């Protein structure tokens, strides 16, 4: 346990000056900022529509959430899985990392957990910034009706669901990035996976939940429609099962891996 914490602390220390770490803060800030700017510059038009508060919040948060499941989240997850491993590939530091008197599982688990944390932080900030910027819009222009509804519970649930739905992709991409040191393989496979995910999710294929890349899309489309209240839906279970199995498989790959 101690070596897991030490490794996790070191992961943070190593990456705190890299784009990968800052992306998890800047990406939500940037996207929510742009949407807010859009709302502010179109304030007159939007206010004229006389949306009820709840619909206004849906419109506002939907601007980011609409592309979240298909694009932002899968790409972000692929990028995180890549960069957490790439820091060792690039600097040729696997050998010194595994020559430390630390349990191999801790080193591996710390890397994985760090990627999970970055995704969590990113999605948490998306939810947080959406709420904060909504209220900021309200403060800047009292014509809005953001104060008529509290989206905290709903957004927390949707983003938490997004988070869970991304873990399957993360585990898969994590293994790919662990094995291959180059940029093209994880990105290429990820890209193809995302497209396949979009296709199977949008065509409503019966077994779409078996494709990890489709989970965020599925989770989002589900949450829009029938089972909004249900946190643990089929694709979430599928994502978690993928995550657990691939996480364990990844460990065996690491344990067997000879560091050339």
């Amino acid at each position, binding site marked *: 346990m101690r070596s897991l914490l030490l490794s996790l602390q070191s992961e943070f220390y*190593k990456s705190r000056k890299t784009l990968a770490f800052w992306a998890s803060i800047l990406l939500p800030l940037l996207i929510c900022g742009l949407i807010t700017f859009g709302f502010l510059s179109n304030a007159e038009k939007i206010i004229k529509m006389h949306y009820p508060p709840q619909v206004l919040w849906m419109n506002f948060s939907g601007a980011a959430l609409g592309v979240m499941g298909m694009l932002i989240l899968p790409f972000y997850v692929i990028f995180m899985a890549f960069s957490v491993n790439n820091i060792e590939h690039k600097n040729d*530091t696997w*050998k010194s990392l595994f020559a430390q008197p630390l349990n191999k599982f801790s080193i591996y688990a710390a890397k994985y957990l760090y990627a999970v944390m970055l995704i969590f932080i990113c999605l948490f900030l998306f939810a947080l910034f959406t709420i904060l910027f909504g209220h900021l819009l309200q403060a800047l222009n009292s014509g809005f009706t953001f104060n008529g509804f509290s989206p905290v519970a709903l957004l927390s649930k949707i983003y938490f669901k997004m988070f869970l739905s991304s873990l399957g992709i993360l585990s898969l991409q994590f293994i790919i990035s662990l094995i291959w040191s180059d940029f093209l393989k994880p990105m290429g496979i990820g890209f193809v996976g995302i497209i396949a995910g979009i296709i199977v999710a949008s065509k409503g294929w019966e077994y779409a939940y078996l494709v990890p890349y489709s989970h965020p899309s599925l989770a989002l489309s589900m949450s829009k429609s029938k089972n909004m209240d249900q946190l643990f839906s089929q694709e979430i279970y599928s994502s978690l099962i993928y995550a657990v199995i691939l996480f364990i498989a990844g460990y065996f790959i690491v344990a067997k891996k000879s560091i050339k």
Partner: protein
Amino acid sequence: MRDLIIETRGLNYYFGNQKVVDDLSLKVEKGSIYGFLGPNGAGKTTSIKILLNLLKSPANTVFLFGKEINSNRIASLKRLGALVEQPAIYAHLSGAENLYNRCMLLGISRTKAKEMLRLVGLEDAADKKAGKYSLGMKQRLGIALALLSDPELLLLDEPTNGLDPNGIIEIRNLMIELATKHQKTILVSSHLLAEIERIATHVGIINKGKLLFQGTINELHDLSKPMIELELNDIAGGREFLNNNGYQILNSTEKKIILPFISTEECGRLNTLLIQHGFTVYSIYQVRKDLEHLFLDITKNN
């Protein structure tokens, strides 16, 4: 026999079908500087990676501090520091941050990192990004990283690679100091014999995965046959004279005659004999075949 810090017993290692380590039985005694010598691609780095458990060795073939490595991985790694090939450094972090990161992983105080920076002479460059370091500076940072936990055993893979002559001397002195003053055991690999000869107490020579020689540096010296080099006023005449008197001449050049060395008395007798027969002896001295040639011979015959 003194305590063996490193011992391998008939170690074999394969990359696929290719045997890269062949029946290797290293014996490294406590407090020694063990020069691990071999041409490029001889299996030195592979052996060091096996000692670090980066490459998995068969059970009961590798022992560090008297314990089997696979079943005592963490305990063994705690007591050693290593520099393998190019130093493993995070290019986007400064030299000091690289050390702090390692301190974090090892659970030791950051003051130790500052101490190491001073030791390897990187104090002034501590806050510079390690990616911008010169090769020599990277190498020094790598050594600082290896020394950080104050390990009993150091595995240094070509530590003077890329260093300028001053840097080489500094690292050499540092190794000698660590072994003599701090009783560290050091295994240092190199493909340069002259480098090893200056510091090592023990030598292992490896080629194509096989250990061809292992012993103290003096034992290595003894392998090279001593010879007499003779300088005379009349080389041609001297050669003929010696031949007629039953001396075996190994070689002769325009200025020198080379004979096998038998004993110091015999050397004196030869001198007397030559002078009595009207030769002027400019010099007569004992030489050994230098180790460089010996090394080439040892590795060539395999």
